[in-house]
């Protein structure tokens, strides 16, 4: 069926990032007027692929053909001009500008008055309204975007894409931020567009969605193309198998160890619109996996557990005593340590050296009078963890932005361990890390647990969750969907709960 009129043909795209092979000769083809779902785990390379198509990144190898002729995009606007529009995951709207201004940013409609070209607002409004009619919704064009709800923003994003009269639309995890009701409206929209002959690449790992709207589905894993099929011909189970079907083998060196008593407990944790009455308990030496889709509220849960975000309700207990966390410092003092999923933004100061990063949270412990840092101690600590975590760097004075993703992640782990934690909260510990380093990090986690450290591990990487956890807590839309013990763990169970 490759013969049927194929509007977008992606051939052998390869893209490398420092330390990671993001895409390895990827091939996907999009047919006229179809919704083609691309699914895979987080970090499988979906978003990278899309960014290449729309010229945010340049591929290292391979070509893309638009209706048979080679597609050349240097910057996003080129793609737009070619009639390819993308709705980015991270919203690309200008919060301070009005909806109208946003819709036409960079390609405003103009008219000539006395020879001078000026913006033609009536025309733009007309077009905007017609587009929103197509989407079957009403939006006040003169509101500033930051005054809109997330769903509406999403719609504006789509509308923006349509202002380019694009025949090809790429939706990157469009529902990640939406509530189920909003999702249905979005789907109606997509159906409308489809009926209007727009071809769409629909990126998601939410299987339900794929079955409701996609015509065909392609699965990718670790940057590799796995398989393509007409949706009608596959089952959810099949897809899951494709998505995670990899030799688990020694990737997850988790030994069964006898667990101690409950050390850390959260009761009825609330955060308006984010978390709804979540109970969580952690035993000594236990690894508690927290599974769920992006936006299920896992990170928010973690933040509330370590005092980085204020809960609106609920209590925390450490070793039986109730604790109040005013800020993260309190948590540190108590030995509750959090490792952020976003190394660049919250984890590391990448412009600083390994040493400086590792000791950042415990400066106040290793510095004497007038806060003078005890360098001997500092170096000792750095050396110790560089060795125990085998961080590949010449020495502690090496700048972290020169490290590979894996080693950077190890640094943030080292940073956490240096704080001598009792409870360790890992958020996506292996995101953006190549398979080799993954194994290492898993080893580390395993050993930590063996040494009696209690770990909460948030992960979207199901095999990881399966491989590492003693117990898995599954979340969906900010609610606890259930808990699975190690012996009853299976990817299907988790997915079925999470979806």
């Amino acid at each position, binding site marked *: 069926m490759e013969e049927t009129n194929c509007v977008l043909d992606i051939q052998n795209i390869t893209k490398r990032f*420092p330390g990671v092979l993001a895409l390895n000769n990827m091939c996907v083809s999009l047919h006229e007027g179809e919704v083609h779902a691309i699914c895979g785990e987080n970090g499988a390379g979906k978003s990278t692929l899309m960014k290449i198509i729309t010229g945010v990144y340049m591929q290292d190898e391979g070509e893309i053909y638009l209706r048979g002729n080679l597609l050349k995009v240097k910057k996003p606007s080129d793609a737009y001009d070619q009639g390819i529009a993308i709705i980015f995951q991270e919203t690309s709207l200008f919060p301070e500008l009005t909806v109208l201004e946003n819709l036409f940013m960079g390609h405003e409609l103009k008219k000539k008055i006395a020879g001078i070209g000026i913006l033609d607002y009536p025309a733009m409004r007309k077009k905007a309204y017609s587009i929103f009619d197509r989407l079957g919704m009403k939006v006040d064009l003169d509101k500033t975007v930051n005054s809109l709800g997330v769903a509406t923003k999403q719609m504006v994003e789509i509308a923006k894409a349509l202002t380019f009269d694009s025949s090809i639309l790429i939706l990157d995890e469009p529902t990640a931020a939406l509530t189920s009701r909003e999702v249905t409206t979005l789907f109606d929209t997509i159906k409308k567009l489809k009926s209007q002959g727009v071809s769409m690449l629909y990126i998601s790992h939410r299987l339900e969605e794929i079955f409701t709207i996609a015509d065909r589905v392609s699965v990718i894993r670790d940057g590799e193309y796995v398989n393509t099929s007409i949706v009608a011909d596959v089952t959810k189970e099949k897809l899951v198998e494709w998505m995670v079907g990899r030799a688990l083998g020694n990737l997850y060196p988790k030994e069964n160890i006898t667990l101690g008593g409950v050390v850390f407990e959260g009761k009825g944790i609330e955060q308006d619109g984010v978390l709804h009455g979540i109970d969580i308990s952690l035993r000594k030496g236990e690894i508690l996996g927290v599974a769920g889709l992006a936006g299920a509220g896992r990170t928010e849960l973690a933040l509330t557990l370590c005092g*980085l975000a204020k809960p609106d309700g609920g209590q925390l207990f450490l070793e039986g005593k109730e604790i109040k966390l005013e*800020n993260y410092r309190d948590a540190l003092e108590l030995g509750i340590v959090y490792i952020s999923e976003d190394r660049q933004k*919250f984890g*590391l*100061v990448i*412009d600083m050296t390994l040493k400086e990063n590792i000791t950042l949270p415990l400066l106040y412990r290793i510095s004497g009078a007038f806060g003078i840092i005890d360098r001997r101690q500092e170096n000792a600590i750095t050396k110790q963890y560089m060795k125990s975590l085998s961080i590949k760097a010449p020495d502690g004075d*090496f700048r972290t932005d020169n490290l590979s993703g894996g080693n950077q992640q190890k640094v943030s782990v080292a940073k956490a361990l240096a704080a001598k934690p009792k409870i360790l909260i890992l958020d996506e510990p292996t995101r953006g890390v190549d398979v080799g380093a993954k194994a290492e990090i898993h080893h580390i986690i395993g050993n930590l647990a063996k040494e009696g450290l209690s770990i909460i591990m948030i992960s979207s990487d199901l095999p990881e969750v399966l491989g590492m956890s003693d117990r898995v807590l599954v979340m969906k839309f900010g609610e606890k969907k259930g808990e699975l013990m190690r012996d009853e763990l299976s990817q299907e169970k988790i997915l079925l709960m999470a979806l």
Partner: protein
Amino acid sequence: MSKQSNRNSDFIKKVINYQSVLLLVLVGLIVFFGIMNTVFLKPKVIFNVIEIIGETLIMALPMTFIITTGGIDLSVGYILTLSAIVFGATLTSTGNLALAIAACILTGTAAGAFNGLIISRTRIPPLVCTLATMSLYRGIALIIAGDKTYTGFPDAFKLISTYRIGKIVPIQITYLAVFFIVFFILYNRSSLGRNLKAIGFNENAVIYAGVDTKKIKFWIYTACGTMCAMASLVYLGRLSAAKPSMGTDLNLEVITAVVLGGTSTMGGVGSMTGTLIGVLIIGVLRKGFTIMNLSGNIYNFVLGAILIVGLIAFALIEERKKTAKKGQK
């Protein structure tokens, strides 16, 4: 291996290049002026540079802290003025020197704390906040002083900036040295300095390391205020008249010195030594040109030029560093 070399080049670029180039410039200037007019090399004259830069250095030290965090304080000049006026007013009204000094220091600290409070507690950017407080403090100084000029300070007091050790070495050198060493250690060896740089690079990460960045910000602006007050005392020791129109040009002088020293207004990157050299360059330029019987205007021109060229050089170095790094990857 490649990383090894990368690190070395990194090291060379960062430490050797900029600050030492600056040092060369300083030496070059001294030699130049020495040739133009040998008087310049007389110990008494060369030491006079220290006298000239007294206030500037005292204020530039905390300013380096502030700029390292990516902030800025435009109000330092007027904090100095205000504290000086308060000192003058108190002294003339009470005649009690100790009291006057206390009042002066207190005023400066309060002014700095006010900046710190606004900057750490509200989302008002430092630039705007200090722009506002700049005219606020100036206004207060004017309201207090009116058309008065406070003079006639006791000679004992003036000694803090007029006394010369062995008739040659100005007393300033002693406490300037102390101040510098303290700030140098705090900046390069203490957890505070570490945190300042980290904040400059990525405040979020510092918050996620359990550090109370607001508190730090508050304290550095407060400290800056205190130092301004001290500077005002040194200033008054040198020019014994406190009036609202004094010290107005010190704002930009101080910032110029810090930036010239290689502290980036983007935050994170900075150097105390650089600041010291920067201030010294300013002093040498001033002294040198006056010794050549040239006016302050040329000084301004040259200083501005040096600053721009310096920045461009710095930018190019950074650029090369980046490309070098890419090369390694």
